């Protein structure tokens, strides 16, 4: 089951087929170079399916962000722990045109709260490629601290950011 969360400006809901065009446009673009892209539309479709399959296999996963005001699908954010990951992370991607408005921060806080309160995860990381300065800044804004490095088989060397724990965000 994929729950719906709500923040001031966003709805966090299950990804759906209607999100595909914008999802594929982002993952096909140069902006996706820090998150395993750019990839073809065919690969993007599998990736969207994988977002949903993660929920099925783990019982938690990443939500599609919908801007309340317009109903627009504007990002993918949430909990990600596939095989090959060292531990569960908060991962985020904003679709083209939705950067710079604090949406990722707003949604990441909601996802973090859900991870601690509902999934009962004891701790969370974010894996961030060194060149992905914007993402590292977001981790900092969330109170995360740079802890070390991890080499992923496919994605290569990444920074490990440790998020504030359950007690710290009460």
């Amino acid at each position, binding site marked *: 089951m994929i729950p719906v969360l709500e923040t001031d400006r966003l709805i966090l809901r299950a990804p759906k087929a209607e999100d595909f065009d914008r999802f594929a446009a982002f993952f096909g673009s140069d902006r996706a170079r820090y998150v395993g892209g750019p990839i073809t539309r065919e690969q993007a479709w599998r990736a969207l399916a994988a977002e949903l*399959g993660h929920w099925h296999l783990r019982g938690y996963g990443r939500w599609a962000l919908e801007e309340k005001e317009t109903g627009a699908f504007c990002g993918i954010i949430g909990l990600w722990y596939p095989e090959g990951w060292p531990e569960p992370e908060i991962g985020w991607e904003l679709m083209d045109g939705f950067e710079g408005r604090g949406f990722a921060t707003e949604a990441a806080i909601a996802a973090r709260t859900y991870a601690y309160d509902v999934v009962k995860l004891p701790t969370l990381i974010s894996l961030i490629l060194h060149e992905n300065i914007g993402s590292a800044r977001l981790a900092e804004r969330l109170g995360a601290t740079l802890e070390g490095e991890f080499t992923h088989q496919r994605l290569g060397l990444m920074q490990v950011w440790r998020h504030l724990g359950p007690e710290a965000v009460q």
Partner: protein
Amino acid sequence: MTTTIHIPTLETERLILRGPQASDLDALAAFLASDRAGFVGGPLGEAESWRTLMRIGGQWVLRGYGMWIIEHRETAQPAGWAGILHYHEWPEPELAYSLFGGFEGQGIAYEAVAAARDGAARLFGITRPISMILPDNTRSIRLAQRLGAVLEGPGQVMDLKVDMWRHQAPEASA
């Protein structure tokens, strides 16, 4: 509104066809790491096998139909997969199937794929799916023939030249 990922279950004499589970990873990874997986895009590592499991689960939400994991009742082990595969570039819904190592020669594939074909017709209205099979995959071709599928002609998927086999509606082949 919350979204529920609902994957129906099919049962046959010796098998249960069900949604993928995290506990299927070892069996799937062993299969995808083996030479047997050469016909389905392998061999693949553990992380890639997990991605395959995620895609199988997620396609059910995006399409409303998908592939089942075949569970062998007697041993409670995953024995393969069968069901409707329909990735983005697929020309149409495909009845796809693979049997993991150690389960060959017992008619398990036939039992599973016949159930999946009938289930796809009954539950999703997919009555005459194709199967895309590499021309040298003789085991798979033999199974398609036993199921009553008919060779329709050459096709292509993911840069692979395949043969398109057309299954018949369950009543017609019974």
